[in-house]
């Protein structure tokens, strides 16, 4: 991992499909070394933005830069060593075990003819330990609970050893305790390893609790960005979601807590 974390920026970015623009002329800097959550109503382009940041889709206009360089100019493998993406609903091959799935995260580091190296094995062990799945490493993934399975996918992204991890709705389909578990895990990775974490999330209050930086999108584009207390305001929620709400301090964490009216 490089010493100075790199900045992911959108510059004049327009995304969507011919005839339906989802994001229009967006300028945005995602702060390095922090935990960022992208929030907004359904259909506002949260996932589209995240996918563009991982070069899974090409911009209609503008560009995404990583450390100042246009993503499209970075070699596929080189990018995969710097930026990991956990998409929504990835597929687990039939019959694969936990350790074998996590090992797939080493792909960008392995040469065409190079075998499995000690470094690869260490990275997998570390990733499994980080998500507390080392004891289940030989289990078939199909036998795991939803929360465990999500931890395995996160471990795959960790084994990839990138400075930056992008996650598309990593808590969807999980019950509340598992959502909190995943968000705490991501926060801990950020604190311990300095990994830049950028997720698309739905739950405003959990996002406020577990993020350093929020990006709030609305139907008309970017509504607000910054620390949670500056972003989750009553007028901003009205603009982004058309939602009338009170914002109170969370009695436990003191972060903003959204109470719909």
């Amino acid at each position: 991992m490089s010493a100075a974390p790199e900045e992911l920026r959108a510059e004049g970015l327009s995304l969507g499909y011919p005839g339906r623009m989802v994001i229009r002329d967006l300028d945005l800097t995602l702060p390095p070394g922090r935990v960022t959550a992208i929030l907004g109503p359904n259909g506002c382009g949260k996932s589209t933005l995240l996918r563009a940041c991982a070069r899974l889709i090409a911009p209609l206009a503008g560009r995404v830069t990583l450390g100042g360089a246009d993503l499209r100019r970075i070699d596929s493998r080189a990018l995969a060593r710097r930026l990991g993406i956990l998409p929504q609903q990835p597929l687990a091959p039939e019959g694969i075990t936990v350790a074998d799935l996590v090992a797939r995260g080493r792909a960008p580091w392995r040469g065409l003819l190079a075998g499995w190296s000690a470094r690869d094995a260490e990275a997998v062990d570390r990733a499994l330990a980080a998500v507390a799945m080392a004891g289940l490493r030989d289990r078939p993934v199909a036998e795991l609970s939803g929360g465990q399975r999500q931890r395995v996918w996160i471990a795959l992204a960790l084994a990839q050893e990138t400075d930056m991890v992008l996650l598309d709705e990593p808590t969807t389909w999980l019950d509340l305790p598992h959502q909190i578990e995943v968000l705490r895990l991501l926060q801990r990775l950020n604190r311990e390893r300095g990994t830049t974490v950028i997720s698309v999330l739905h739950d405003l209050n959990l996002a406020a609790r577990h993020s350093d930086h929020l990006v709030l999108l609305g139907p008309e584009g970017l509504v607000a960005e910054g620390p949670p207390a500056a972003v989750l305001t009553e007028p901003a929620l009205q603009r982004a979601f058309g939602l009338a709400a009170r914002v109170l301090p969370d009695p436990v964490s003191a972060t903003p807590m959204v109470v719909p009216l």
Partner: protein
Amino acid sequence: MRAALALLAAAVLLALLVGPRPVGPGTAWAALTAPDLTDPAHVVLLTQRLPRLAAGLIAGAALGLAGVILRGLTRNPLAEPGILGVNAGAALAVVAGAMATGRGDGGLVVAMAFPGALAAMVAVFLIGGGLRGGAGPMRLALAGAVLNALLMSLVTGIVLLRAESLEVLRFWNTGSLSQAAGRPLGAMAAVVAAAVLGALAVAPALDNLALGEAMARGLGTRTARAKGVALALVAALAGAAVAVAGPIAFLGLMVPELARRLAGGGMRAQMGAALCLGPAILLAADVAGRVVLPPGEVKAGVMTALIGGPVFIWLARRIRPGALA
């Protein structure tokens, strides 16, 4: 892997020794080390069984490997060159070329089989809704079944039109190893060997693609290129198999399932297993065909269909609705 190699070794021995005229191991060894062309057993072994063995190794390895690649690419256990009509496309191109030029030699076969396989594969993926089978695995299998039936009926039509050369052309209706001696074995062995290297090179990309398109790209795979290479390899392998053995059904269906059970989920391990299991099954089918109805002979392609049909039904019943979409 050891089990697969043992199976292959057993099949090779059977292919050399068993037939309407059994040959003892000692005679076989003598024929290979000190051939005596006045001994009929040596002649049978050298001019019949050795070429058949070579054809079985080439076509079996090609179809087994093609099946593993296609299954990995589509996540569809029903996707194999026989069912998808790729073998039939190669066979039709060969037969049509033979009718148009009046030639039937190895050069023509080689020149026609590959474009035929490629054209059929492009057609089946266009009809079947793309690589991931946008409309589900059944649509791709159905598109293949229809295309296969259409192409094979055209082959039959052409074969029947040319009654005078019926025996030669009938080879293209159902695959068999019986005409191995007249087939371009050396050239096709080279094609398969090159395709094996290509397949091993593209295997890590296929491993990544098995996690989904987005994940694969996130892991640094150039997915469009990998898919293009993989499909070109399948067309080359199917073309080579048809050129030496005609259209052999269901082999590409049975082998990947067995290879996955034997070797686990990794692509390279599965490919290695398939390279042993494909020839083992095809040679066993050929040997069985030689002995079940003496003095006649049942074609290897019929034998693989007899075993493969039930395997197809079993695999099709295992697909849960939407599970592979």
